[in-house]
Every structure is written in C-alpha cells, then in structure tokens.
C-alpha cells in the first residue's frame, strides 16, 4: 500500500514513454518550461496544445501519479482511494481550466500550507531521492492531459 509501488504495467509504460521521449526529443532538458501566472491561474497550455482527457483519466488513476493517494473521485473501478482531500467529482464546475492548471503546477499558490504536492516544480525541495532529483513530478504533457480530464468532471 505505502509507499506506492509501480506495477509491472506502469513500469513497462514508463519504459515505453522514456524510450519514445529519447526518440522524439533527443537532448531536451528535464526541468520545467517557463509559464505565466495571470490572476489565480495559468491561462496558456504548458505545451501550447490541448491535453487528452482520456490519457488524463488514466494518469489520475495511476498510483505513481499519486492523486488518489489523497483524493477520491468518480472512479468505480478502484477502491484504493484516499480521503485526505476533497472528492474530485465536480472539479470542472468549481474551477476554470486556468485555475486547474495552476493548482497542479503549484497548489501552494492557493494555500501555502497545503499538503498537495506541486506537480510542476523542481526547486526549493529538500532531500529529493536520487531518481527524482531535478525533475518535476509530472511532465508538461501529463499536466495538460490531467487538466483536460478534470475539466470534464462536471455534474
């Protein structure tokens, strides 16, 4: 249960993603790309393109993405959901796409004491494990996919 372990399937997927990144981008830097905060949101996509909500849903459910350690949501296929944070049902009603993007990038913008990790930040952290140092938790593409999915959570 804790710490979350990657299943064989997610490890295989990670290897696949890693391989395709090397293939597609060669020498791309791993750190976050710059973004612009306007008001309480980030209006522009981090990748310049809209995300894929289907991939976003799968990411939110993946243990290695960590969302459902704390959150629950409309995910009837799994009982491994947390209750440290609000249910994600209806998140698309409560928040704009721009706000959701900033929430994922840096949740401490909304609540400096929050326990929700900043998913697109790689500095100002203490004793980060060797395998994770210098990298944000999620890539820009993954953030956009998850934002696209959260925006569909409307009731």
């Amino acid at each position: 249960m804790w710490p979350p372990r990657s299943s064989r399937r997610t490890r295989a997927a990670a290897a696949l993603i890693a391989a395709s990144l090397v293939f597609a981008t060669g020498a791309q830097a791993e750190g976050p790309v710059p973004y612009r905060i306007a008001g309480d949101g980030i209006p522009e996509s981090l990748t310049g393109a809209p995300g894929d909500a289907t991939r976003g849903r799968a990411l939110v459910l993946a243990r290695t993405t960590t969302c459902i350690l704390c959150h629950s949501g409309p995910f009837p296929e799994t009982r491994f959901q947390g209750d440290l944070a609000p249910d994600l049902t209806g998140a698309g009603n409560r928040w704009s796409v721009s706000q959701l993007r900033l929430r994922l990038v840096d949740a401490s913008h909304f609540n400096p004491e929050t326990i929700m990790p900043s998913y697109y930040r790689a500095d100002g952290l203490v004793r980060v494990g060797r395998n994770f140092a210098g990298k944000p938790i999620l890539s820009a593409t993954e953030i956009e996919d998850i934002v696209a999915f959260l925006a569909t959570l409307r009731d």
Partner: protein
Amino acid sequence: MSFWRAIALAALCAAAPALLAGEIPPEARRSGYSFMGPDTRAMQDDDTSNPGMLFVLDGEALWTKKAGSADKACADCHGDARSSMKGVAARYPAFDKSLGHPVTLDQRINLCRADHQQATPLPYESRDLLALSAFVAHQSRGFAITAGDDPQLKPFVAQGRDLFMRREGQLNLACTNCHDDNFDKRLAGAPITQAQPTGYPLYRLEWQTLGSLERRLRSCMTGVRAQAYDYGSPELVTLELYLMSRARGLPMETPAVRP
C-alpha cells in the same frame, strides 16, 4: 562539524520543548494496534499465531550462544534476560556516556558484540540482529515507554522533532502531515496511524518478515520520494528517539504485528 557535535552545542541553549500546534496530546496517543482489524489483532495477541515469536525464540537461543574471540555469550554477563533485560527496551534509544550521543537498542547490542564479545557487528536488518533485538525488547512487553526522559537527551529529542516536522522529498511532505494531522484518514484506502513505535521490531504482513523501526522510517521516506537516511545514521537515531518520547506512557508490544 559533525551532526552529533552540532546537537551537543545546541544543547547549551536548548529549553524544554512544549507541545507544538498539531502535536497529539498525551491522552489521545494510540498504538497502531488500535487501527487494525480484528484478524490482525488476534494474530498479535496469540503467541502461538504471532509470527514475530519465532524470532523471539531465535533470539533466546542466540542469547546463550558463545560468540567472538572473547568466547562469551550475552548470558555470561547478563544472566537471565527475563530479569536483567526487563524494561530496558522501553527506555531506548538511550544516552551513551562514552560516545556522548544516543544509541538505539540495535546499536547497543552491536556495541556489546564489539566491546565485550570481540565479535564483528551484526548487519542492520540481519536475522540475528532482529532476533536478539526482538528477544531483548520482548522482555519489556507491557512496560510503559520512558525513552527520552534522561535530561541529557533533550537536544537530541528536539532535533528528531525538527526532522519529523520538516517537509522533504519530491512530494514535499513531512511526517507530521500524515501522522499528526491526518491519522484515522485513508491514504489510497489504507488507514494512516499516529506512527507510534510501540512494537518494534515487528512483523509486517506486507514485508512477510520481522523488520526494524528504521526500516519502516526509511520506507516512509522513500514513499515521499526522499533520499532515505542510512541505517544507524544520527538522523534516524534522533527520529527514533523523538518517536519513542512522543509515545511516552504507551505500553511496549514487541513483537507487534502490523498489516
């Protein structure tokens, strides 16, 4: 300056720490046992079904086995553990005068191996060290925890508390965020407890074996994607000491069973 020396210097100006906001008041402290289901409780309660008792029996055999170039057994100096080791584990980690800093029960056992048996230290998490430590700590089962009462330990307890409160790792979470602020809630469906170290070494069903408190702390650190401290490092020892002092008054359960 070494970690231990820095703490010793800080001691000169350290005052007794009061309860911080968010810390659990003494009367609300609960062992991980109270968070478990009836099956796991029953397994711990019955010595014939508690898998940790096999390690205790191994430890009992090692207690009387001669070792090292001194060719001495623990029993040659300490006699019957049932009386000589009674209540000892409930006050560990304890201050070691010659070293000038606290040592854990595992470290104390290895000091005896080195100094008194002239034998090589047992590796952390090895079956023999876990067995000896389980056997010694079992002699404290039911004893109230008093670790940290020694005034010389104050600055080390404070240091452990700082580490407990500090956010770390890629997920940027502190121990206190889960174990003070969110116990009784569920992390991906699994109950979060208060992290009371009452039963170590203990049998975790998930590990399928006995494990030390340090193993548990390292796995929580890995969980938040932090670089875990090394076994026996001053940081893990002070964290362990803080946890034990935070559990003051709770009864020892060694060998406990956890899911």
